[in-house]
């Protein structure tokens, strides 16, 4: 993780408002803005520029889009988001949402076209709404971590070819979310197990398996609310259902931030 001085962050404010910062920079900006109102104000002062650029060449949408939108909105009230997403959302959350964007957009295309054909819209919308609700629940559980949300990058080589996972530890509520990728399913009779290394000792966090595409999104409840002494997050292969202690050497590891 790159460290930036306050001066460097202020220099980055225009680029951040424009969406031109790298992931590293954007994460640093979002973190810093939470505790630095002056920096947040500096970025905010530039946010109307992209808004103006966006509004330069309006095109009136077809009335059916409006009708479809309002019909979709009637299927459910707004979901509560207790905190300010834009103010607190770290840069990795859009990355997490990227997967849902494909579904949402394709779902929207589907819904709109079904509306046009006047058939199947309700079923499609219900399915999309259910999926959106599930994903927003996941998102909210992360946002609720506030300043006590810790991200551990486990495995994943820089070439972007190896397996890995992102472990989002919401210490405020004792929850976590593990986003697993490029990890082929464990063989029959085996599962993967995630461990926290606390004061040098492994503590089980979750047991899971990945799907055929190598993905898994694991919601973890009831883990420690304190991350004191946590130095790493590890993954090992264990007998189905998991083990009390690792029975094989961890094959993925990630250093806990600040450890």
């Amino acid at each position, binding site marked *: 993780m790159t460290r930036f001085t306050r001066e460097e962050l202020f220099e980055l404010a225009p680029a951040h408002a424009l969406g031109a910062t790298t992931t590293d920079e954007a994460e640093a900006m979002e973190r810093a803005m939470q505790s630095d109102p002056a920096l947040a104000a500096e*970025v905010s002062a530039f946010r109307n520029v992209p808004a103006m650029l966006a509004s330069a060449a309006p095109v009136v949408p077809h009335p059916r889009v409006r009708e479809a939108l309002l019909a979709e909105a009637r299927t459910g009230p707004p*979901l509560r988001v207790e905190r300010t997403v834009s103010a607190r959302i770290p840069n990795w959350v859009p990355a997490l949402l990227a997967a849902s964007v494909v579904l949402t957009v394709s779902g929207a295309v589907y819904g709109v076209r079904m509306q046009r054909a006047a058939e199947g819209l309700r079923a499609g919308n219900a399915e999309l709404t259910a999926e959106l609700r599930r994903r927003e629940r996941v998102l909210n559980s992360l946002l609720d971590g506030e300043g006590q949300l810790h991200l551990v990058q486990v495995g994943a080589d820089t070439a972007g070819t190896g397996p890995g996972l992102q472990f989002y530890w919401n210490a405020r509520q004792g929850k976590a979310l593990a986003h697993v990728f490029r990890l082929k399913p464990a063989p029959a009779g085996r599962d993967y197990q995630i461990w926290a290394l606390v004061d040098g000792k492994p503590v089980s966090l979750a047991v899971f398996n990945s799907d055929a595409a190598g993905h898994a999104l694991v919601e973890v409840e009831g883990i420690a609310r304190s991350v004191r002494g946590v130095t790493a997050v590890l993954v090992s292969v264990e007998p189905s259902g998991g083990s009390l202690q690792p029975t094989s050497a961890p094959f993925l590891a990630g250093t806990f931030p600040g450890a």
Partner: protein
Amino acid sequence: MQGGDERALATLYDRHAAALLGFVLRIVREHADAEAVLMATFLQAWRSAASFDGSRGSVLAWLAIMARSRALDVARGTKRRELREQPTVDEADPIGEAGEAAPVDPLAGVEQQERRRAIDVALATLPANQRRVIELAFFEGLTHVEIAERLTEPLGSVKTRIRQGMLKLRDLLAPLAHEGVA
């Protein structure tokens, strides 16, 4: 809208949909994709209305950030798909045929024209190299590192151009924002 009032959603849509559709179209090109992104953006706004924080920017800025993110994802997916196959008739089929969109309200049209002219003038005051990097960042979703690679220019120069261009635009476009346009 944070209270779940659908009329507020309709008002928000009526006020900003055209601006956002034009913006999204510039990124995704395909009319049907753009309208799908537009609808998904407003649904996201509806379902996460409580997340809007006015201290972080205007409503339009909030919507534009969401729309841009979705549009860039679609554009990148489209680019990947185009590498694999030619678009089918179905994929090219817009929600409403091209040109079917409703006419612009005359008064709103005048305001839009004035706004567009002001934005064009502001952009025209920028040196071409500043305008270029800002457009690459905003409309193509490139980071300053990627822009430097694309233009084969030093990263520091790109960063400086973005900063200088944004500073000028912020000052030049401030009157529009203060008129309540944003």
